[in-house]
């Protein structure tokens, strides 16, 4: 009886172009809105996972391999698989429901989340989130 689809929850997108990708809930709309009369949430996820970095790699190569490509999407709850993991990256100010209305707002939001994801990846925390789900 605990609500678990809350912000900062790590989820896996199940349907659509990004199916199989890990994402984090930024904002959840449990009762829906007028345009979307179903439970849905705004997620920020990983489009392209960072590659495996080995000790032999030069600094330039490490930087290239640690790049993360992000996506921002509004997803129905039905198309998500919640996990027991969380990712506490503060994306509330960056990702807002209105940033999906125009292309350039979306691009700037994605760039900012990319930066935050990359710095989180470099610290080595939340390793599960940045590994590709094999299926």
């Amino acid at each position, binding site marked *: *009886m*605990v*609500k*678990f689809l809350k912000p900062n929850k790590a989820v896996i997108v199940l349907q659509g172009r990004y199916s199989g990708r890990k994402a984090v809930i930024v904002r959840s709309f*449990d009762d829906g809105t007028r345009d979307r009369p179903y*439970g849905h949430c705004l997620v920020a996820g990983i489009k392209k996972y960072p590659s495996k970095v080995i000790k032999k790699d030069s600094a330039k190569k490490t930087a290239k391999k640690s790049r993360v490509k992000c996506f921002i999407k509004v997803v129905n709850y039905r198309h998500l*698989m*919640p996990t*027991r993991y969380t990712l506490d990256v503060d994306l509330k100010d960056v990702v807002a429901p209105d940033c999906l209305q125009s292309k350039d707002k979306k691009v700037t939001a994605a760039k900012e989340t990319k930066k935050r994801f990359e710095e989180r990846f470099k610290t080595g925390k939340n390793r599960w989130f940045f590994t590709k789900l094999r299926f």
Partner: protein
Amino acid sequence: MVAGKKTKKTHESINNRLALVMKSGKFTLGHKTVLKSLRSSKGKLIIISNNCPPLCKSEIEYYAMLAKVGVHHYNGNNVDLGTACGKYFRVSCLSIIDPGDSDIIKSIPGDQ
């Protein structure tokens, strides 16, 4: 966790409690609505039949683990669970939203 052979007495008591819930409480039947009730944190107890497909079973158990809701593995298949609910169709999983007059929520997860 000793499952063993569930005595006839406790099995009947589950059936009795379920019948009372059907009469006086709120419930939903079926995988889709069970997940919906878990997501909205309305479900209070989940009952799964023993021949529920393992993927569905695992999915429901995982959601219930996240929502901290008890899951009861019914000692019977979906045909039996449907009969226990008083329905003429098969029921693989059901979610009790409001137990009504029944004490199923207090008594059954304790037995598990």
